[in-house]
């Protein structure tokens, strides 16, 4: 037994060492750069620079884009996750595989594809043109960027929700119907509250990458408006201002940690607020 407990203790140690070296240490560097100037002196200057109207606007815009993308993903993903979870196990497996499949294609190429689809002379508009509609202006708008985000991160919303829903005991749905719930209230009163953990992890998995993306906004937004990801990338790759970039990353990180903490706190509140 002693040997066993020793093994148990030792098992996590590679992970702990790895985490300290490659998760914690890098974050300390981010903090170091965020709180120093180019000469390495301690300063809050990077943060005061961030509080310029222009950067605040970028932050706000990124939050809005990511928020809308997340909401849309949730609205689209929930029904499909639900339908899939009610199918036969074998069908479920296939459908989920099919939903994951696009993620194996290169994300840059897929985004490029959307450009070809959404342009004024693009495929969608050519198609609409056959019926005499349009051209509908899509590319280089906020909407196009959000479509790009929704497209890229939709599977990350569907999969966690589906995995929770597929574990919901079918008898609970019958019990609800038996007690007088119509199909709609079965969903609002039973299915939805039970799937909150899946929704939370779905929201996390969509919101976080959406808020920090920097390719989608460049390609589908026509570079007309920057998001926080673009701005951070520029500090590191173009402007060579590590300190400002680090402070932006730091703020972004805080922003995410705070919002996730709030969300998780509400979710843990014995079974969710929404009952």
């Amino acid at each position, binding site marked *: 037994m002693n040997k066993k407990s020793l093994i148990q203790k030792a098992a996590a140690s590679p992970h702990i060492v790895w985490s300290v070296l490659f998760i914690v240490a890098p974050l300390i560097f981010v903090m170091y750069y965020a709180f120093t100037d180019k000469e390495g002196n301690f300063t809050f200057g990077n943060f005061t620079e961030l509080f310029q109207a222009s950067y605040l606007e970028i932050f706000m815009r990124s939050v809005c884009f990511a928020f809308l993308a997340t909401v849309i993903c949730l609205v689209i993903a929930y029904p499909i996750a639900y339908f899939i979870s009610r199918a036969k196990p074998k069908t479920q497996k296939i459908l989920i595989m099919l939903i994951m499949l696009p993620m194996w294609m290169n994300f840059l190429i897929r985004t490029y594809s959307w450009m070809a689809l959404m342009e004024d002379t693009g495929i969608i508009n050519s198609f609409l043109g056959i019926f005499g509609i349009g051209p509908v202006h899509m590319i280089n708008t906020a909407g196009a960027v959000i479509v790009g985000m929704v497209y890229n991160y939709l599977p990350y919303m569907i999969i966690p929700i589906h995995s929770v829903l597929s574990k919901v005991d079918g008898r609970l749905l019958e*019990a609800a119907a*038996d007690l007088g719930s*119509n199909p709609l209230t079965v969903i609002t009163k*039973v299915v939805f509250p039970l799937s909150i953990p899946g929704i939370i992890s779905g929201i996390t998995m969509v919101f976080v990458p959406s808020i920090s993306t920097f390719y989608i906004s460049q390609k589908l937004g026509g570079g007309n408006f920057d998001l926080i990801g673009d701005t951070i990338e520029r500090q590191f790759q173009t402007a060579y201002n590590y300190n400002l970039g680090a402070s932006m990353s730091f703020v972004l990180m805080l922003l995410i940690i705070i919002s996730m903490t709030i969300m998780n706190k509400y979710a843990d509140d014995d079974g969710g607020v929404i009952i």
Partner: protein
Amino acid sequence: MNEKKIIELKGVSKSFDGELILDNIDLKVYEKEFMTLLGPSGCGKTTTLRIIAGFVTPDCGELLFDGEKINEVPPYKRSVNTVFQKYALFPHLNVYENIAFALRLKKTPEEEIYERVEEMLTMVNLRGFEKRDVNLLSGGQQQRVAIARALINKPRVLLLDEPLGALDLKLRKDMQNELKNIQRKTGITFIYVTHDQEEALSMSDTVVVMANGKIQQIGSPTDIYNEPENAFVADFIGESNIIDGVMLDDFKVRFSGHEFVCLDKGFSKNEPVDVVVRPEDVDVVPVEKGMLSGIVDSVTFKGVHYEIIVTINKFKWMIQSTDYVAPAQKIGIYVEPDAIHIMKKSEFSGMFGDYSSFSDELEHLSDVTEEEE
């Protein structure tokens, strides 16, 4: 018993994946009745219940409620509620909210909800448990919550799907009494599904024995026990020795190479029949006084009595006796005329009766997940 029919099934059949689960079922349920559907797993009892609840639509036949056809009415519009096999309590709601669920859907005023929930909690002895997380309750407590939740809607009929299956023996007995009391107090019709014949006999007004998707017999517990209609029922309800016999004449039957006087009549002459003799109705007597005689194979002490397996004419009889006999001893047996019950031959003839491979645990084992879609 009230004579007003509340539910009626007419010629109902159902099959899943080409397999016939229910075969032309006719069933009448009366108001205030405690009816039990009894049968081994796969016999179609749960499917019958689910048809009544509305989770399964019959392939053919009619389901009548108060004389009206309700085949297509969805479950949430039926005044029938169900206590599910493993309770199916909502894990995201506490005890109070679980019970209040149905009332909330009807937008009942909060005060009324409070009163009725409290009333239900009192009935099932769970006052003070309102705030509890249902996942942390014991099996018996969860059971009570499930009953309270189903009853708060004041349904006309309560369906119970093996509600005591997951409880231990002691708790089971208590809950049986409690259920019976609740039924008496509320006057609601109970349709109870179980595979436990003892439970069925002790609780029900009417027992419906099912096998292979068909109803084998409908009757009061005493009828079912004393006058089983075929070998299946005889075997399923209690212990029984089922012996091939020939009806010589009215009141005269021959089996095991011996002629017996009985109380049955109305069979044609020399008709082959199944003869049922309950183990407790067989008296052990000295060989010379016995109608039949045989060698004792084994004796098991069961507390109230000894269970004796005796080979008579190559047939192994089971006899329950308060007197001890030694194995390998030769004994005689005596059977009173009223202890002999004659049944017509049926599809089940010959399948049961001999105790050579007896094991009373087998049939209880595989019954938990029955007829899941």
